[in-house]
């Protein structure tokens, strides 16, 4: 197996790119889990809804996807808030497994609603076209499409923005407070119900961003969200439930391991390797790489 520098660099690059998408998805999920201890398997469908909104804005209205993505984040953020109000809020206090049940129902609703709207016209797969689709940045050893550069910049800028919100704003303080100790936060006068709502909105918006970026570099369909979401769950467990730092490091590590494993073991191991990694980490550190809630 010839493994020259160019090939290795490209493998790590693909891992970095898919890792960034996993990272955004995982950060959204871990925020929601951190604050509300809610396991929402339908996060993948929120991701796909975001991707489809960006797609329609660019396909039907000609809006540049890198502008449309913010509209999509807002729209899916609102959808997230509605879902939290209607569903997860009412399940608080009942059995933990009910949340999984509710998210399964959500998967059925969102997936088939998207399919009903898009499949008759666009068949199984669509892809978001960007104005820079064929422009290429030549870095000597490898060439890199503009879209990848923008993806990495957008993903990390969003993380920076999230860090600022979390550690430099009132809302951020409330979120971290509620995440660490809900009852204490309530006693301190934090309106935890409002924090739940906003956190779910932010988490959903991050999912929409992850979906839109995924939809720019890969074709996607209404059913493409479920697997990435479950892998993102494995990531937040790898990184430590509720820990944003864990989600970031876990997401990147995950993308790279998947890419390297696909290179050496072949495509059929791609999904399974993710869980082999999870099992190995959990056997050595049952609470994940970073302490919970960091």
């Amino acid at each position, binding site marked *: 197996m010839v493994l020259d520098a160019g090939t290795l660099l490209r493998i790590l690059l693909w891992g970095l790119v898919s890792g960034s998408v996993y990272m955004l998805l995982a950060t959204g999920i871990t925020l929601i889990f951190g604050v509300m201890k809610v396991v929402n398997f339908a996060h993948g469908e929120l991701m796909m809804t975001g991707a489809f909104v960006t797609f329609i804005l660019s396909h039907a209205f000609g809006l540049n996807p890198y502008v449309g993505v913010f509209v999509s984040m807002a729209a899916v953020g609102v959808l997230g808030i509605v879902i939290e109000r209607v569903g997860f809020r009412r*399940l608080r206090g009942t059995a*933990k497994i009910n949340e999984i*049940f509710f998210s399964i129902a959500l998967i*059925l609703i969102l997936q088939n609603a998207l399919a009903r709207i898009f499949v008759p016209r666009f068949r199984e797969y669509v892809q978001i076209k960007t104005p820079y689709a064929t422009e290429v940045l030549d870095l000597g050893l490898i060439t890199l499409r503009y879209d990848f550069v923008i993806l990495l910049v957008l993903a990390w800028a969003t993380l920076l923005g999230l860090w600022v919100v979390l550690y430099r704003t009132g809302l951020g303080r409330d979120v971290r407070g509620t995440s660490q100790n809900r009852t204490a936060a309530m006693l301190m006068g934090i309106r935890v119900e409002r924090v739940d709502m906003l956190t779910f909105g932010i988490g959903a918006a991050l999912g929409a961003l992850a979906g839109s970026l995924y939809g720019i570099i890969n074709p996607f369909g209404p059913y493409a969200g479920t697997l990435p979401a479950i892998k993102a769950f494995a990531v937040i467990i790898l990184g430590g439930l509720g820990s944003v730092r864990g989600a970031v490091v876990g997401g990147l590590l995950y993308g790279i391991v998947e890419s390297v494993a696909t290179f050496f073991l072949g495509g059929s191991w791609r999904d399974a390797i993710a*869980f082999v990694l999870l*099992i190995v980490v959990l056997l050595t550190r049952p609470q994940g790489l970073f302490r919970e809630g960091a």
Partner: protein
Amino acid sequence: MGALRRLRRELIVAALMLGLPLLLLTLVRELFVLQVLTFVFIFAIYAQSWNLAAHSGQFSLGHATFLGLGSYASIIAASRLGLAPAVALFVGPILPALAGFAIGALCRRLREAYFGMVTFGCTAIVQVLVVEQFGWLTNRWDGLDAPRLAPEGLPVERVAVLNYVISLALMVATYLVVAAIIRSRIGLAFVAIHDNETVAAAAGVSVVRYRLLAMGVAGYIGGVAGALNGHTLTRHISPGVFGLEDSIWPVLYSIAGGLGTPEGPILGTLLVRVFWEWALRRIGGFDSLILIGLMLALVVTALPRGIYPVFARATAALGARLTPNSVKQP
């Protein structure tokens, strides 16, 4: 005799559970209704196996591992080793039982979301092993055809009735086995572990041993459901069984029915499945699936403890003391 006396209530329910469908059998000749109900009986066994593991606090998101391995082992035993399907049906599930022990051991220190994720991961890994490493035995992606449980040469109507009765009998048998376990010291140990492991240990319960036992028995029962499904309804098995979809069914049915009770999974499977079939036939396409999603969301938000409490309150009015002394709420 103590045990039988303790199960008096369950024996009544079992008699009802056996009698009503048999009565229905005499009234209804429509083959399609028989096949839908046979599917309900088989997947009620599968949901029961998930419910038993959940009873000990182990909420698996990869239960398809047991369904699939049970099916594969039984079909291979029947077609390659020449075992009669009726025997392979009970020999095959030994493999998922062992897998249950292995997964239980792997996850003995993991709880809730961690446990769920690793069990899901195991399903993905088992699929690759079945297709790749054991491809020579499992025919890789082409899958295997399953010999029929009913003797050859039997006309289609008689086969459907036979499948119906066998599945019904096995469902009721599983119900009684699980009820006996839940009512016994093992059941108490499961609930103790589910509620608080440290205190259970302080009371002398060997937490790891009982968790493994729960996963092993659940593995076996899930395997029987897989084998039964293979030899009666699908008559074929392919690696597709190890997908997320097949792991979700028992979770849906058990929760809709009501967790922690042996009656819950059966009730849940019946109601959700009949609604599913009705929606698919009457509406079909994406709309039917959206409607099913809405219905499930409504059920869980309105009835967080599943349909069972409603059913129990309703039947309690009939005088028969069908509500156990304390309705278990996980």
